[in-house]
């Protein structure tokens, strides 16, 4: 997909500088259209694939019938598509988009293409809170209340992500100014601390809890239901809808915080907004699907090479490719070892870790 976009962009003749600027805009637009096509195609594929294989044409017909309320609503295929696969697909699209956008936001904030919510402890904070809920939930919540502790998981993860972000922000901010370097280092320390605490949790948990914990830390979209989606989707949609407002500020921040201020950006307010959006996106994503790594690093970096680093294009493009990547990874996770399922975190790590290493080697000039 990316090669096709790059090829067509380069073939536009750039006779004058004005043409060159127009060509770059056209290439960005083309990239976005190509990504939309990719996401739609992957979605139809994902709805059709599985133990009950349904051809794409029938998937589209079922969706149309479900939307209009006409025709076959209660057949077996229709139930598989709308009852099981559709909430899972939508969850995958939203979580993938949110993770990729959170990565792009964090990299812009840190002016560093290697920054990622996983790196600065936001994901580990959310993951730790989820772990606490799994292992200690039954002891902390009195049985008399009649609440299933597992239902508290999304809330716990969300609060954990938010709390670790706020602690991070408080440590790194003095006199209204945020030191990016301090934030990065404090994030690494917080991540290690959360890792240690998670280790303690694993030590005190029983066999069933240990299984849940492991499953959670590797990530999965398996638990997606319409009920869960109803809680998570509004948070993620609101986060995604708010990010384009920050595109100009992120572009200016890339030049440096002082330059961004010179250019007319309310820098401290923009930084606070970015931090809150990242916490919301990561917290809600971890709550929905556990800890899924590398999407936030791979997607924005790849897109900077294809559509350029302008955040007005990069943010929507990241949302689309992130959505596509996670749905694709989920498709692999639930088909390669069918009827069993791989945790999706294993698939994204298998794609992401080599990519990350390639990125590092490329920065050191060892690869073209």
């Amino acid at each position, binding site marked *: 997909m990316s090669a096709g976009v790059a090829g067509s962009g380069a073939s536009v003749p*750039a006779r004058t*500088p*004005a043409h*060159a*600027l*127009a060509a*770059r*805009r056209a290439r960005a637009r083309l990239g976005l259209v190509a990504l939309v096509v990719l996401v739609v195609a992957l979605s139809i594929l994902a709805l059709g694939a599985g133990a009950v294989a349904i051809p794409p044409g029938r998937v589209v017909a079922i969706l149309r019938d479900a939307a209009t309320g006409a025709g076959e609503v209660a057949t077996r295929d229709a139930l598989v598509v709308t009852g099981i696969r559709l909430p899972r697909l939508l969850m995958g699209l939203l979580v993938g988009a949110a993770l990729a956008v959170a990565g792009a936001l964090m990299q812009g904030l840190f*002016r*560093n*293409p290697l920054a990622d919510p996983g790196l600065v402890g936001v994901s580990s904070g959310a993951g730790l809170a989820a772990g606490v809920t799994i292992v200690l939930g039954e002891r902390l919540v009195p049985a008399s209340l009649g609440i299933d502790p597992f239902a508290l998981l999304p809330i716990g993860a969300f609060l954990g992500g938010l709390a670790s972000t706020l602690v991070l922000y408080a440590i790194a901010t003095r006199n209204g100014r945020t030191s990016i370097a301090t934030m990065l280092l404090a994030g690494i320390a917080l991540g290690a601390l959360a890792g240690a605490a998670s280790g303690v949790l694993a030590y005190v948990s029983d066999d069933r809890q240990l299984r849940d914990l492991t499953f959670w830390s590797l990530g999965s979209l398996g638990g997606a239901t319409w009920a869960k989606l109803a809680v998570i989707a509004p948070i993620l949609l609101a986060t995604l809808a708010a990010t384009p407002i920050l595109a*100009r500020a992120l*572009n*200016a921040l*890339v*030049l*440096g915080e*002082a*330059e*961004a*201020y*010179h*250019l*007319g*950006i*309310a*820098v401290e307010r923009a930084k606070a907004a970015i931090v809150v959006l990242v916490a919301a996106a990561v917290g809600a994503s971890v709550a929905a699907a556990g800890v899924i790594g590398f999407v936030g690093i791979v997607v924005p970096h790849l897109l*900077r*090479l294809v559509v*350029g*680093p*302008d955040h007005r294009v990069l943010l929507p493009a990241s949302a689309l490719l992130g959505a596509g990547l996670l749905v694709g990874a989920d498709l692999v996770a639930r088909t390669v070892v069918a009827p069993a399922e791989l945790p999706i975190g294993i698939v994204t790590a298998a794609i992401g870790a080599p990519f990350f290493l390639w990125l590092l080697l490329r920065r050191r000039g060892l690869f073209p």
Partner: protein
Amino acid sequence: MTALIEAADVAYAVSGRTLVHPTDLTLGAGETLVIVGPNGAGKSTLLKLLTGELAPSAGRVRYGGRDIRALPAWRLAAMRAVMAQSETLAFPFTVAEVVGIGLDGVSGGARGAARDARILDALARADIVHLAARDVQTLSGGERQRAQFARALAQLEAGRAAMGDAPRGGQVLFLDEPVSSLDLGHQIALLEAARALAEDGLGVVAVLHDLNLATLYADRIVALAGGRVVAAGPPDRVVDAALLRDVFAVPLPVHRRAGSGAPFVLPERPGRG
């Protein structure tokens, strides 16, 4: 001459160390003010106080009579542009995109081809149209400096549009060591471009190390040493051998140009006069 900027008793101290002692400074429309002084004299700090980047620990800075701390960032950005000492970027923006970022903070109004036209105009004035599509990460120090200059020019144009296409003037261009990486031809070209803006009524404030360039382009020179203004006035008065020896602690004999009689400095090796 109307005052664009008035600084009254501005001082800046951080963790008990005073970097800028209480200073009064005004900048008039059409005036080019050059700040000179040795390393660590407080030149950049004074510039940051004037641009609003640093809040003074005492005193106040006014733009057109209004306290700078009371102006929102976007409003201030329409009134002044800053070409800071350039850093390398972490992301592969093109030169045209970086210049475009200069347009977006203030207005966001112009889009598509109109925005491109403004970008190309700024590139042309900084003599870097040929670099438009280049990745800024691959530029030389001098090319990067000219790209930053183009960005500042674009910001001034956008600011003028945002203030209802007001006549030039009322705006200020700050240049922090703008020619440090440029060859002589481009040093002169950049300062000529800045000087042309001043002739249109803008105020220009530049930090320069080259006293001869300062003398050529300044209406007024402010010499700083140890965070204090030790001399301020027209180049004729400030470029003085005794004064320069005090400020820079090396002998800097001052000569006169044949014809104009303007002063120039010809450095000598200490003790070999």
